[in-house]
């Protein structure tokens, strides 16, 4: 039986979810969702299960590749809004690693560090990875001035995250988007300055050729 919190989270992530369905789902007990023969309740159950299925599939079939020592990235193009659900999962699995998932248009970055989860939404995977490697290069060089300059671009990009302004009402409130609940939206630079597991004194180097095109 699906708990109410899980049901609402999955339903909110469904691409055809509406505020009305969310409101209906809030009135349902787990037992009703499980055993109702009402068509709309059935529909809610199927939508939540479809999202759960996609999360399970993506977790299982995604392949991650390293970019330097701090980053694991992988390509996903989820049908529903589950990017962070998946990147958070791997962030918790690999504490201190920046998990960057996405496709040509969107990317989700999660980092689990010092007991907290940090998130970042972004444009296409390759531009996010390019930003990350630029920041890592700058951090490695350790020049304060250059660091400031270089990061501004990435910062702006990060703040404009394409997903941020799209949702309104019930769904957005539930998902706590815009920096709330269990993940904060933070600029990449601050994510990268979180402690990782990289050995002391070892420099971060990234091969440009490791960054995927497109």
């Amino acid at each position, binding site marked *: 039986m699906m708990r109410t919190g899980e049901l609402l989270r999955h339903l909110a992530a469904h691409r055809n979810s509406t505020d009305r369905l969310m409101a209906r789902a809030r009135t349902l007990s787990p037992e009703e969702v499980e055993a109702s023969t009402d068509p709309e309740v059935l529909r809610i159950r199927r939508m939540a299960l479809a999202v759960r299925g996609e999360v399970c599939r993506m977790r299982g079939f995604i392949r991650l590749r390293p970019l330097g020592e701090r980053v694991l990235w992988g390509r996903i193009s989820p049908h529903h809004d589950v990017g962070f659900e998946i990147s958070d999962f791997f962030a918790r*699995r690999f*504490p201190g690693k920046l998990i960057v998932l996405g496709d040509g248009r969107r990317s989700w970055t999660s980092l689990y560090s010092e007991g907290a989860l940090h998130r970042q939404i972004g444009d296409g995977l390759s531009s996010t990875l390019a930003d990350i490697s630029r920041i890592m290069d700058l951090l490695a060089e350790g020049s304060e001035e250059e660091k400031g300059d270089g990061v501004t671009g990435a910062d702006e990009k990060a703040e404009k995250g394409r997903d941020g302004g799209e949702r309104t009402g019930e769904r957005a409130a539930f998902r706590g988007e815009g920096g709330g609940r269990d993940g904060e939206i933070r600029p990449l630079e601050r994510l990268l300055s979180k402690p990782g597991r990289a050995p002391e004194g070892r420099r971060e180097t990234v091969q440009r050729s490791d960054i995927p095109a497109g």
Partner: protein
Amino acid sequence: MARLATESCFDSVGPAPGRAIDLAKVEALGRGTKYDLCTSSAAKRQGEDALGSALRGGLCHSFTGSGRCVSLFKTLYTNACPHDCGYCPNASISAGKKIFSYDPEELVRITLALYRENRIEGLFLSSGIGRDENETMEEMIEAVRLLRSAHHFRGYVHLKILPGSSKEHVREAMELADRVSVNLEAPSSARMAELCPSKEYERDILARQRYIQDISRYVALPAGQTTQMVVGAAGETDREIFDRLLLEYDVLNLKRVYFSAFTPLAGTAFEDREKAPAWREHRLYQIDWLYRIYKLDEGEITAAFDDSGYLPDGDPKVAIARASFEEPIDPNGASFAELIRVPGIGPKTARRILLCRKNGRIERMRDLAALGVAARRAGPFLKVGGKAAATLDRWGV
């Protein structure tokens, strides 16, 4: 698997120069586990600042050539083995066999690389006996110890206990693994003599299972003890297998018993024997489910066997239902135990029916279908809206 290894030539600190992986070895030792089965775990472990996590529920990643779903790095530690099990490609007499062995560091490196790429959820480590079972067991344990303590690996680990391992090794393995298993292979010592004359059923296998049972009183084993049998290589009947299964569950408290249908392999002593049909393995799993999950008792399940002690190639639940239902039952009045005995209704659906009844009677087959009932199969055994559906072929084939 070889392809996986090519893509995993990096370790926790980036590319691993000069540490090329011996692909022939990875491939040979992976293939050597042909008869070793593994499925899901029920383990959950996760911690702050630890590498990895094991998931509750099924593990499901990728598919082997034979269509089996594997999500564990399933491999032998070594394929060297002094035993001569007739079906086994790792037997010492096996023609043209090339010997490979891992060392602990090497195995750890490959496992971690595959895990980081999310190709696996964990490690399933089996082995031939090697020179000596305790020496090999020691090295297998060392590999897992490295994973757990040096690399803080919290993923899933299933360790095979080699027949004849010492009690101390069994305990160490249990402290590190999520699941351990000793392979029964045969349902009795007489059948074992047929399969593998050099293994002592009572001493090498059953005694080790009892060690595990004893030790699990004070060492928590998250995913429990399991075992497996090769089906159809030694002329055993399904009834013999079922009788052994009962002992494994009721006396030794095993969590699962797995079956592997025998396939003759070139170069083995049994290469000319007949292949066991895949459906036989499937029917045995159905029986296992009826006993373990549906909690049917031994007497009821007996109805599924034919006179010579074999399971026919048909759904055993239907055979048992035909033998036990006097007349169709009304889902509005039936108990949970009655409902799950209806073909087409499983425990989950039966629970839904009970929940749904709280809000009123169920009068339409369509509502039952919405709750998950396989209407076509369940129809003959159910009375919905006062009448039985499809009475005509109720007892037919």
